[in-house]
């Protein structure tokens, strides 16, 4: 009896240990591939064996799998699949032993996921970084300074804004994947019905006496007169608010070089005196008035507000063209240069390839990054993602950017594209900006809020000093 108890007990412990081990091991090994199965396809290809590239390339090389933390985007995943397959063919199959495993996260989770990966010492080679976050990652030593690996000539293949987005304290931290710039998009049917003629080359202007307000008032439709318009004349983001779109009006109320226009001190750490200038407050006040006093803007717009017929005009990047084609093929839209106060501006929105400081495959990762950011690599991204390329020469070959309205966006970008505020604490700033703007949208005292949040932003930057 005693023996039996012991045998059962030991057997139980062994079985439970095996179960635990099985559960743990499975989770650890399966997690990365489960994120984005499509991304694994190139890895499944026979690396060097299939290459018809001569003796040298046929040399037995250890397969190298690069881990790439990136945003979850089905179209982009397809682009990378094809790009990796092409990369394996270049230089007579020199990189045919390299494949990529993706760890794809939704946009909101990407930043925390990168932080977690770094903290847990996870093997990461490549990081897809949003433009303003490049400086944050650089300051924290998460990505490598690649200045020594890119010549001046190579840097000139991209727009200066993209290079600026990736530059921190003189170092170049990652070539760009794509860019973006905002335009004023509008529904042609609503504009025609209101009898309005839009000159695409002439921007509307903000302010109570600006040219935009009468247009938006005319476009606002409240057929049943219940005080709740069926169509709002104007929309800029919402119901969540971000620096990328909602800071622009305030910055345009300054002239280049002024605190209002630059948005933050040169070291990126002081907001008081930049965020809360009189011009900025004037612009934020007008933003709020568009909701309440003039009633031309919704405080809680639904997704795809303009395409769904809820607003007549809205500010966005040219991704809207793809959404219109895919989901609203019957809706006709057009674009004009975005509105401004004193100085025209669109805030640039680049994405970059950053090489992790912990990579054990620097040579392979660098080779891939160079290829991905080259004109050839950019072609794959454009093919699937249809987003504004950061490569100057490649852009010149894309027919869509030679014709209106995308040509207008490209021209506007070149002339007026400006990086979002340059600060290693951009993430903290953006979180606070969202809260600030929500409070503004909720009807708070604009001047008080602006001053308070400038202070909070300064406090959040203290750790970088």
């Amino acid at each position, binding site marked *: 009896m005693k023996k039996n108890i012991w045998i059962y007990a030991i057997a139980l412990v062994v079985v439970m240990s095996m179960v635990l081990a099985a559960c743990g091991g499975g989770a650890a090994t399966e997690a990365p591939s489960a994120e984005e199965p499509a991304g694994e396809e190139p890895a499944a290809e026979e690396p060097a064996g299939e290459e018809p590239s001569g003796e040298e390339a046929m040399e037995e090389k250890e397969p190298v799998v690069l881990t790439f933390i990136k945003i979850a985007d089905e179209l982009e995943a397809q682009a990378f699949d094809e790009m990796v397959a092409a990369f394996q063919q270049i230089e007579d199959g020199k990189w045919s032993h390299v494949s990529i495993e993706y760890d794809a996260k939704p946009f909101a989770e990407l930043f925390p996921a990168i932080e977690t990966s770094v903290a847990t010492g996870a093997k990461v080679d490549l990081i897809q970084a949003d433009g303003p976050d490049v400086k944050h990652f650089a300051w924290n*030593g998460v990505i490598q300074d690649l200045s020594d690996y890119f010549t001046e000539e190579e840097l000139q293949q991209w727009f200066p804004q993209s290079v600026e987005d990736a530059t921190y304290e003189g170092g170049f931290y990652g070539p760009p994947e794509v860019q973006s710039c905002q335009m004023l998009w509008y529904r042609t049917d609503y504009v025609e019905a209101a009898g309005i003629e839009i000159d695409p080359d002439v921007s509307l202007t903000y302010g109570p006496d600006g040219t935009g307000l009468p247009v938006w008032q005319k476009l606002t439709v409240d057929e049943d007169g219940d005080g709740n318009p069926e169509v709002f004349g104007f929309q800029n983001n919402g119901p969540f608010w971000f620096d990328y779109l909602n800071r622009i009006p305030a910055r345009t109320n300054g002239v280049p070089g002024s605190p209002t226009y630059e948005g933050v001190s040169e070291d990126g750490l002081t907001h008081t005196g930049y965020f809360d200038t009189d011009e900025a407050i004037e612009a934020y006040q007008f933003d709020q008035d568009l909701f309440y006093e003039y009633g031309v803007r919704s405080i*809680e717009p639904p997704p795809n507000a303009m395409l769904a017929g809820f607003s007549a005009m809205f500010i966005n990047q040219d991704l809207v063209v793809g959404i219109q084609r895919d989901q609203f093929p019957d809706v006709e839209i057009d674009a004009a240069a975005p509105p401004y106060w004193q100085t025209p501006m669109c805030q640039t929105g680049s994405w970059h390839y950053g090489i992790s400081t912990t990579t054990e495959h620097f040579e392979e990762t660098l080779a891939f990054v160079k290829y991905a950011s080259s004109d050839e690599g950019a072609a794959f991204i454009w093919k699937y993602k249809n987003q504004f390329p950061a490569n100057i020469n490649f852009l010149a070959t894309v027919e869509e950017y030679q014709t209106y309205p995308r040509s207008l966006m490209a021209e506007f970008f070149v002339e007026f594209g400006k990086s979002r505020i340059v600060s290693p604490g951009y*993430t903290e700033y953006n979180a606070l900006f969202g809260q600030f703007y929500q*409070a503004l949208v909720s009807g708070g005292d604009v001047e008080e809020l602006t001053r308070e949040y400038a202070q909070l932003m300064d406090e959040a930057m203290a750790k970088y000093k």
Partner: protein
Amino acid sequence: MATTTSNIPRVGRQRWWQKYRNQYILVGFLFVLPALINFAVFRYYPMAWAVNTSLWRYSLLRGFQEFVGIDHYIRAFTADTQFISSMKATLYYVLGKVPLTIILGLALASFANQERRGMGLMRALIFIPVVTSFVVVSIVWGMVLNRDVGLMNATLQGLGLPRMEFLTSPTNVMPTIIGISLWKDVGYSVIILVAGMRGIAQEFYDAAVVDGANAWQRFRYVTVPMLRRHLMFVSVISTLGAFQVFVPVYQLAPQQRNAQVIVYYIYQKGFIFGEMGYASALSVILLLILLFLSIFQIRVLRSEDV
């Protein structure tokens, strides 16, 4: 001598029993060992790690930087007004949600405990929100409560009432989140309370009827006292859950300062502001608050048992 011989078998029996009991305990211990390992690895170790981290300036990207002792704790109570306001928001949520969970749970349980046709379906309907994803539910509620295109406001307007800003108004956002959470969670309390009601012997009600008690009096003087332990369980679980609310705030009102509850604030400090050391200190403070509350509630339960 006689004494000695009479003692021998007694000692022997005691030893046998003790051995048997020890083996029994050992086997029992082995059965719970996996759960203990799970707790140790996934609960106690992270807790100990958080306590240690709270004493350091630490960020996920830069690691441990500087030992700061209890500075983070001092900062939380003396210099961080947002921490205080997030605690107030949390308390607002707890005080709003927990009593409503108990009252509504009791009412729905009384209703769902009836033996009528269709009650199985009713119980299922009440419980369905519990098993649905809070993320999905939050998105759907966000659409329903939208000021301009939401179903709720269309209904209000149809009834001649003004449209409401459920999620964008600083004053309405918290009651709205409490309401959504209540809808989502109350089914769990109902199931616990229905199970409790099923355990009350019919004799108590029969005796109350004989004494002339009406329906309300039977509920007040029989059902509620007999459900005391279940109600206490529901209140403890609801309180702990309410203090840790995160998903509806993250999904529906992440930028509303009035809705910034403590767990969301901790998340923001740790992951967005890169202050994981400070976030850990806030987590430890929250842990202590919850420990204190749990001990208090359990003590109350025990004292009523006596």
